């Protein structure tokens, strides 16, 4: 089932002589279980693409349909509660993990559940399940500062999975990890995509990490090319 459909999306910053066309006529369709890589050099529009896909940045033109719901029509938002969609149906994985430093690993995973009203035993059971799945349960009560980079990233992935998201957006998830740990994270994302039937979009500049991806897109000067 199609999770994200982007059609004719453009993002233009500024106007007149100062106009910058960050994204130009982007078309992208991602289904549940798909693992999609978005490659491109610095300044190619990867971050802008990620911001539009995560519904943070409003496109100048184009249509975004998420999980069957029209979020953005040609020239404006469709009036949907975007934050609700992000907290209920999206998961985010960041380059620098971005765990909340004053919460333990367990509490970091619990946080998105609390935002959607899942509390008590149900929430605790889900957190336990995720931390075990990510093989980090023995470090559940540690603050992020006491975890290694790889451990932090696994907690961050567990947090992204907490609400069974339809779409996971990963921004350079292996950039701060060594090659071995980076590969393991990518393996994990593949596993998650297949087992949870979540669509996973990974933004990366590291081509060594994209073996086994269902689709690889290249962004160059704001235009998207589908490689395979």
């Amino acid at each position: 089932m199609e999770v994200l459909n982007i059609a004719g999306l453009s993002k233009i910053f500024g106007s007149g002589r100062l106009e910058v066309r960050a994204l130009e006529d982007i078309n992208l369709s991602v289904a549940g279980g798909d693992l999609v890589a978005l490659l491109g050099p610095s300044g190619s529009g990867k971050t802008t693409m990620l911001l539009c896909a995560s519904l943070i940045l409003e496109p100048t033109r184009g249509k975004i349909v998420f999980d069957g719901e029209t979020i953005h029509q040609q020239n404006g938002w469709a009036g949907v509660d975007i934050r609700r969609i992000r907290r209920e149906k999206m998961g985010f994985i960041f380059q620098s993990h971005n765990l909340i430093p004053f919460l333990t690993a367990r509490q970091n995973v619990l946080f998105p559940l609390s935002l959607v009203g899942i509390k008590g035993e149900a929430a605790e059971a889900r957190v336990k399940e995720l931390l075990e799945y990510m093989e980090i349960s023995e470090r559940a009560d540690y603050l992020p500062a006491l975890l290694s980079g790889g451990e932090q990233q696994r907690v961050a992935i567990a947090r992204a999975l907490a609400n069974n998201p339809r779409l996971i957006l990963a921004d350079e998830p292996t950039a701060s990890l060594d090659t071995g740990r980076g590969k393991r994270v990518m393996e994990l994302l593949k596993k998650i995509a297949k087992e949870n039937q979540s669509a996973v979009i990974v933004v990366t500049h590291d081509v060594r990490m994209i073996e086994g991806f269902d689709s690889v897109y290249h962004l160059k000067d704001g235009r998207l090319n589908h490689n395979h």
Partner: protein
Amino acid sequence: MDLAVHDMKLHKGRFIATVMGVGLLFTIVLAMNGLYRGNIHEGLAVIKATNPDLWVVERQRGGPFNETSTMPEAYHYSVKAIPGVAQASPFIFYTVERQVGGQSRHFSIIGYDVFDGLGGPQKIHAGRSIARAHYEMVAHDKLGVKLGDQVPLGLHTYTVVGLTREAISPDGEALVYLSLPDAQEVLFQRDNEEIRNQRARLSRSLNKSLSPQAAEKVLPGVQPDTHIINAILVKLRPGADRAAVSRHIESWLYFSTFTTAEETQLMLKGRLAGMTKQLLLFRTLLLIVSVVIISLVIYTFTMEKIRSIAVMKLIGAPNLTIVRLVMEQSMLLTLGAFLFGFLLIHNTYHLFPKTLVLLSGDDFVTFMVALFGGILASVLGLWQALKTQPAMALGG
């Protein structure tokens, strides 16, 4: 999930230090509340304890406490003769600094008619009232004397026959009650050298117009009068018209009259007003300083969490979650600091040299102002948190 508490736990050292620092400021604010009330309490204590129906003082003067008032002692007989007056007693009040128990002590003396006159101590917790015309005294506990102690004042030594803790002088110093003649003697007693000089000066003046023999005869009659008092305390007969008695005294004896309520107002608007305004200004400044400090601390706390706030927004946290995080920290800081200040002042107020009167009403008002200040203090942090873009969470 209580994010604010989790954050505080991580930074508990800094949180406790800030609570103590701001708490000390609140301690000073609460102490100044107490000082303000204590100032009024002390300033009005003698007036309230004496509480006659009328205070008769020198014309156009707001005496005897707010302003100096002097009048001849004998006029209390004239006042007593006015229809409606049941009792009229001479009253003298002044401040001295003398050696008591080997230490220099600042205190006030009240002289009154000890034989059924008004103006004496109403409640004596040890010993008795003054029963003899001379050389007995009743002292406030603050003077640090015991029953039976001998206290030299001027040429004579006075025996402490009673102790009171009822009234205190408007300066917050101890009160000493003496008989009127004793109080006058202590006040006007001059040393021998000064008496000789005064006599010589008068003698020289009189010799200009009189023979030496005539001047010598006249001299005792022109010595300064020491039968001076500061006020006459009046008790009215039941049913007497206070206004009529006042008019009579003002029109025929050329004195001013005040009720105890008016005397209280004279003090509040006069002698006590400056200190009251000063304390209000200090309290306001300290509260502003407290709010500014809390604002800066909350702003710093918020700025340190700005990336986490961006992450929270990105993963869909509603603004209410962010507002609650910032506001709750501000409130915890404010409440913690106020509680610290409250406990500190309520356990140390007796150590202050001036009387602190701590009223729960004042504590409550200060608490409400602090609470409002805490909310105000979080505005800067809230503004920063709410304008944070979720996009900040992306990138390295």
